[in-house]
Protein backbone atom coordinates (compact mmCIF):
# COMPACT_ATOMS: atom_id res chain seq x y z
CA UNK A 1 0.00 0.00 0.00
CA UNK A 2 1.89 3.05 -1.28
CA UNK A 3 0.87 6.36 0.25
CA UNK A 4 0.37 9.06 -2.42
CA UNK A 5 2.31 12.26 -1.76
CA UNK A 6 1.01 15.44 -3.40
CA UNK A 7 3.02 18.63 -3.77
CA UNK A 8 1.02 21.81 -3.22
CA UNK A 9 3.30 24.87 -3.54
CA UNK A 10 5.88 24.46 -0.76
CA UNK A 11 3.94 21.81 1.16
CA UNK A 12 3.85 18.02 0.76
CA UNK A 13 0.59 16.27 1.55
CA UNK A 14 0.66 12.54 2.31
CA UNK A 15 -2.85 11.07 2.48
CA UNK A 16 -2.89 7.61 3.97
CA UNK A 17 -5.64 5.66 2.19
CA UNK A 18 -5.86 2.41 4.14
CA UNK A 19 -4.21 0.36 6.88
CA UNK A 20 -0.42 0.37 6.61
CA UNK A 21 2.07 -2.32 7.49
CA UNK A 22 5.23 -1.40 9.37
CA UNK A 23 7.15 -1.67 6.09
CA UNK A 24 4.67 0.73 4.43
CA UNK A 25 5.23 3.23 7.24
CA UNK A 26 9.00 3.08 6.82
CA UNK A 27 8.54 3.54 3.07
CA UNK A 28 6.41 6.62 3.72
CA UNK A 29 9.15 7.99 5.97
CA UNK A 30 11.84 7.51 3.33
CA UNK A 31 9.68 8.88 0.49
CA UNK A 32 8.70 12.00 2.44
CA UNK A 33 12.23 12.80 3.52
CA UNK A 34 13.53 12.36 -0.05
CA UNK A 35 10.78 14.62 -1.42
CA UNK A 36 11.36 17.33 1.19
CA UNK A 37 14.87 17.67 -0.26
CA UNK A 38 13.82 17.25 -3.89
CA UNK A 39 11.11 19.96 -3.74
CA UNK A 40 12.68 22.07 -0.97
CA UNK A 41 9.39 21.83 0.90
CA UNK A 42 8.80 23.94 3.99
CA UNK A 43 5.94 21.84 5.31
CA UNK A 44 4.56 18.30 5.45
CA UNK A 45 0.98 17.31 6.21
CA UNK A 46 0.27 13.65 6.98
CA UNK A 47 -3.42 12.83 6.84
CA UNK A 48 -4.16 9.79 9.03
CA UNK A 49 -7.97 9.98 8.78
CA UNK A 50 -8.06 6.49 7.21
CA UNK A 51 -5.96 4.88 9.95
CA UNK A 52 -8.09 2.85 12.36
CA UNK A 53 -5.08 1.92 14.47
CA UNK A 54 -2.16 4.06 15.65
CA UNK A 55 -0.02 1.71 17.68
CA UNK A 56 3.42 2.24 19.15
CA UNK A 57 5.22 1.58 15.88
CA UNK A 58 3.07 3.96 13.83
CA UNK A 59 3.42 6.68 16.47
CA UNK A 60 7.16 6.27 16.72
CA UNK A 61 7.51 6.39 12.93
CA UNK A 62 5.37 9.53 12.58
CA UNK A 63 7.42 11.16 15.33
CA UNK A 64 10.67 10.29 13.60
CA UNK A 65 9.35 11.62 10.27
CA UNK A 66 8.50 14.93 11.94
CA UNK A 67 11.86 15.18 13.68
CA UNK A 68 13.88 14.29 10.58
CA UNK A 69 11.82 16.62 8.35
CA UNK A 70 12.48 19.42 10.85
CA UNK A 71 16.21 18.81 10.47
CA UNK A 72 15.69 19.13 6.72
CA UNK A 73 13.94 22.48 7.13
CA UNK A 74 10.28 21.40 7.01
CA UNK A 75 7.56 21.44 9.65
CA UNK A 76 5.19 18.47 9.95
CA UNK A 77 1.55 18.48 10.98
CA UNK A 78 -0.42 15.25 11.55
CA UNK A 79 -4.09 15.68 10.74
CA UNK A 80 -7.20 13.53 11.07
CA UNK A 81 -6.52 11.43 14.17
CA UNK A 82 -9.93 9.82 14.77
CA UNK A 83 -11.55 10.17 18.21
CA UNK A 84 -11.39 6.42 19.00
CA UNK A 85 -7.77 6.37 17.88
CA UNK A 86 -6.97 9.36 20.10
CA UNK A 87 -8.57 7.68 23.15
CA UNK A 88 -6.62 4.50 22.46
CA UNK A 89 -3.31 6.34 22.07
CA UNK A 90 -3.79 8.02 25.45
CA UNK A 91 -4.54 4.71 27.17
CA UNK A 92 -1.62 3.00 25.50
CA UNK A 93 0.61 5.78 26.83
CA UNK A 94 1.60 7.16 23.44
CA UNK A 95 2.61 10.77 23.02
CA UNK A 96 3.40 12.60 19.81
CA UNK A 97 5.89 14.81 21.63
CA UNK A 98 6.73 17.98 19.77
CA UNK A 99 4.78 16.91 16.68
CA UNK A 100 2.04 19.37 15.69
CA UNK A 101 -1.47 18.14 15.06
CA UNK A 102 -4.63 19.63 13.59
CA UNK A 103 -8.18 18.43 13.16
CA UNK A 104 -8.21 18.23 9.37
CA UNK A 105 -6.26 19.06 6.22
CA UNK A 106 -7.50 22.64 6.00
CA UNK A 107 -6.53 23.43 9.58
CA UNK A 108 -3.24 21.61 9.11
CA UNK A 109 -2.31 23.82 6.17
CA UNK A 110 -3.29 26.91 8.15
CA UNK A 111 -1.15 25.80 11.07
CA UNK A 112 1.83 25.19 8.76
CA UNK A 113 1.46 28.69 7.35
CA UNK A 114 1.46 30.13 10.86
CA UNK A 115 4.46 28.02 11.96
CA UNK A 116 6.50 29.03 8.93
CA UNK A 117 5.64 32.73 9.33
CA UNK A 118 6.84 32.48 12.90
CA UNK A 119 10.11 30.89 11.69
CA UNK A 120 10.69 33.51 8.99
CA UNK A 121 13.42 36.05 9.72
CA UNK A 122 11.90 39.16 11.26
CA UNK A 123 8.56 37.34 11.63
Amino acid at each position, binding site marked *: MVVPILKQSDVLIASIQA*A*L*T*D*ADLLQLRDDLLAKVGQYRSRGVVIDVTAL*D*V*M*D*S*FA*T*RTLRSIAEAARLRGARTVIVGI*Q*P*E*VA*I*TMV*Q*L*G*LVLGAVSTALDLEEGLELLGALNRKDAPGG
Partner: protein
Amino acid sequence: MVDEAREGLEGELLVPIERDPDVVTARQKGREMAVEAGLSGSDLTLIATAISEVARNILVYAGHGEIILRQLERNGRRGVCVIARDEGPGIQDIPLAMQDGYSTGRSLGLGLPGAKRLMDDFEIVSEVGKGVTVTMMKWRR
Protein backbone atom coordinates in the same frame (compact mmCIF):
# COMPACT_ATOMS: atom_id res chain seq x y z
CA MET B 1 -8.86 -17.70 32.83
CA VAL B 2 -9.70 -18.90 29.35
CA ASP B 3 -11.22 -22.12 30.62
CA GLU B 4 -13.82 -20.35 32.73
CA ALA B 5 -15.19 -18.71 29.65
CA ARG B 6 -17.54 -20.72 27.52
CA GLU B 7 -16.18 -21.00 24.09
CA GLY B 8 -17.25 -19.25 20.96
CA LEU B 9 -20.56 -18.95 19.28
CA GLU B 10 -18.83 -18.61 15.94
CA GLY B 11 -15.90 -20.79 16.98
CA GLU B 12 -12.36 -19.57 16.80
CA LEU B 13 -10.02 -18.16 14.26
CA LEU B 14 -6.28 -18.69 13.94
CA VAL B 15 -4.13 -16.08 12.23
CA PRO B 16 -0.54 -17.18 11.58
CA ILE B 17 1.95 -14.38 12.22
CA GLU B 18 4.85 -14.81 9.88
CA ARG B 19 5.22 -11.61 7.92
CA ASP B 20 4.54 -7.92 8.34
CA PRO B 21 1.07 -7.91 6.66
CA ASP B 22 -0.12 -10.64 9.04
CA VAL B 23 -0.14 -8.05 11.84
CA VAL B 24 -2.66 -5.99 9.86
CA THR B 25 -4.73 -9.10 9.08
CA ALA B 26 -4.80 -10.13 12.76
CA ARG B 27 -6.05 -6.76 13.94
CA GLN B 28 -8.67 -6.59 11.20
CA LYS B 29 -9.94 -10.09 12.03
CA GLY B 30 -9.96 -9.17 15.72
CA ARG B 31 -12.05 -6.11 15.02
CA GLU B 32 -14.50 -8.17 12.93
CA MET B 33 -14.86 -10.75 15.68
CA ALA B 34 -15.41 -8.02 18.26
CA VAL B 35 -18.22 -6.59 16.11
CA GLU B 36 -19.79 -10.06 15.93
CA ALA B 37 -19.56 -10.29 19.73
CA GLY B 38 -21.52 -7.07 20.01
CA LEU B 39 -18.69 -4.71 20.94
CA SER B 40 -18.65 -1.28 19.38
CA GLY B 41 -17.13 2.18 19.22
CA SER B 42 -13.73 2.79 20.71
CA ASP B 43 -13.63 -0.77 22.15
CA LEU B 44 -13.03 -2.02 18.60
CA THR B 45 -10.06 0.30 18.24
CA LEU B 46 -8.72 -0.72 21.66
CA ILE B 47 -8.84 -4.42 20.72
CA ALA B 48 -7.31 -3.90 17.27
CA THR B 49 -4.49 -1.85 18.78
CA ALA B 50 -3.75 -4.38 21.53
CA ILE B 51 -3.62 -7.14 18.89
CA SER B 52 -1.26 -5.04 16.80
CA GLU B 53 1.16 -4.72 19.73
CA VAL B 54 1.29 -8.41 20.67
CA ALA B 55 1.42 -9.53 17.03
CA ARG B 56 4.37 -7.25 16.34
CA ASN B 57 6.14 -8.62 19.41
CA ILE B 58 5.80 -12.11 17.92
CA LEU B 59 7.45 -10.99 14.68
CA VAL B 60 10.18 -8.92 16.29
CA TYR B 61 11.16 -11.13 19.22
CA ALA B 62 10.13 -14.65 18.22
CA GLY B 63 10.16 -14.52 14.40
CA HIS B 64 6.80 -16.24 14.02
CA GLY B 65 3.82 -17.47 15.96
CA GLU B 66 0.06 -17.14 15.92
CA ILE B 67 -2.91 -15.13 17.09
CA ILE B 68 -6.02 -17.05 18.12
CA LEU B 69 -9.30 -15.15 18.28
CA ARG B 70 -12.32 -16.45 20.16
CA GLN B 71 -15.75 -15.21 20.99
CA LEU B 72 -16.67 -15.55 24.64
CA GLU B 73 -19.82 -15.80 26.66
CA ARG B 74 -19.85 -15.82 30.45
CA ASN B 75 -22.94 -15.28 32.60
CA GLY B 76 -24.76 -13.96 29.57
CA ARG B 77 -22.04 -11.43 28.88
CA ARG B 78 -20.23 -11.54 25.55
CA GLY B 79 -16.69 -10.67 24.68
CA VAL B 80 -13.60 -11.61 22.74
CA CYS B 81 -10.47 -13.44 23.72
CA VAL B 82 -7.14 -12.89 21.99
CA ILE B 83 -4.31 -15.37 22.47
CA ALA B 84 -0.87 -14.49 21.09
CA ARG B 85 1.45 -17.45 21.14
CA ASP B 86 4.99 -18.11 19.99
CA GLU B 87 7.79 -20.56 20.59
CA GLY B 88 10.56 -17.99 20.58
CA PRO B 89 13.18 -17.22 23.25
CA GLY B 90 10.62 -16.28 25.91
CA ILE B 91 10.88 -13.53 28.51
CA GLN B 92 13.21 -13.86 31.49
CA ASP B 93 11.76 -11.13 33.68
CA ILE B 94 8.06 -10.56 33.04
CA PRO B 95 7.53 -7.79 35.65
CA LEU B 96 10.37 -5.89 33.97
CA ALA B 97 8.93 -6.46 30.46
CA MET B 98 5.59 -5.16 31.75
CA GLN B 99 7.10 -1.81 32.79
CA ASP B 100 6.33 1.24 30.70
CA GLY B 101 9.34 2.13 28.60
CA TYR B 102 11.25 -1.13 29.04
CA SER B 103 12.46 -2.42 25.69
CA THR B 104 15.23 -4.71 24.51
CA GLY B 105 14.33 -3.71 20.95
CA ARG B 106 15.10 0.01 21.26
CA SER B 107 11.43 0.80 20.70
CA LEU B 108 8.95 2.55 22.99
CA GLY B 109 8.43 -0.30 25.47
CA LEU B 110 4.69 0.35 25.63
CA GLY B 111 3.38 -2.70 23.78
CA LEU B 112 2.81 -5.09 26.69
CA PRO B 113 1.88 -2.59 29.44
CA GLY B 114 -0.22 -0.66 26.92
CA ALA B 115 -2.10 -3.77 25.75
CA LYS B 116 -2.82 -4.59 29.39
CA ARG B 117 -4.35 -1.15 29.90
CA LEU B 118 -6.45 -1.46 26.74
CA MET B 119 -7.99 -4.84 27.59
CA ASP B 120 -10.14 -5.99 30.55
CA ASP B 121 -8.14 -9.12 31.34
CA PHE B 122 -4.49 -9.67 30.53
CA GLU B 123 -2.24 -12.59 31.37
CA ILE B 124 1.26 -13.34 30.16
CA VAL B 125 3.12 -16.58 30.71
CA SER B 126 6.56 -17.48 29.48
CA GLU B 127 9.22 -20.06 29.90
CA VAL B 128 12.70 -19.07 28.80
CA GLY B 129 13.60 -20.95 25.63
CA LYS B 130 10.01 -22.11 25.12
CA GLY B 131 8.13 -18.99 24.12
CA VAL B 132 5.46 -16.58 25.26
CA THR B 133 1.67 -16.80 25.51
CA VAL B 134 -0.36 -13.65 26.06
CA THR B 135 -4.07 -14.12 26.78
CA MET B 136 -6.29 -11.06 26.85
CA MET B 137 -10.03 -10.42 26.91
CA LYS B 138 -12.37 -7.58 26.34
CA TRP B 139 -16.02 -7.74 27.44
CA ARG B 140 -19.01 -6.01 26.02
CA ARG B 141 -20.00 -3.03 28.17
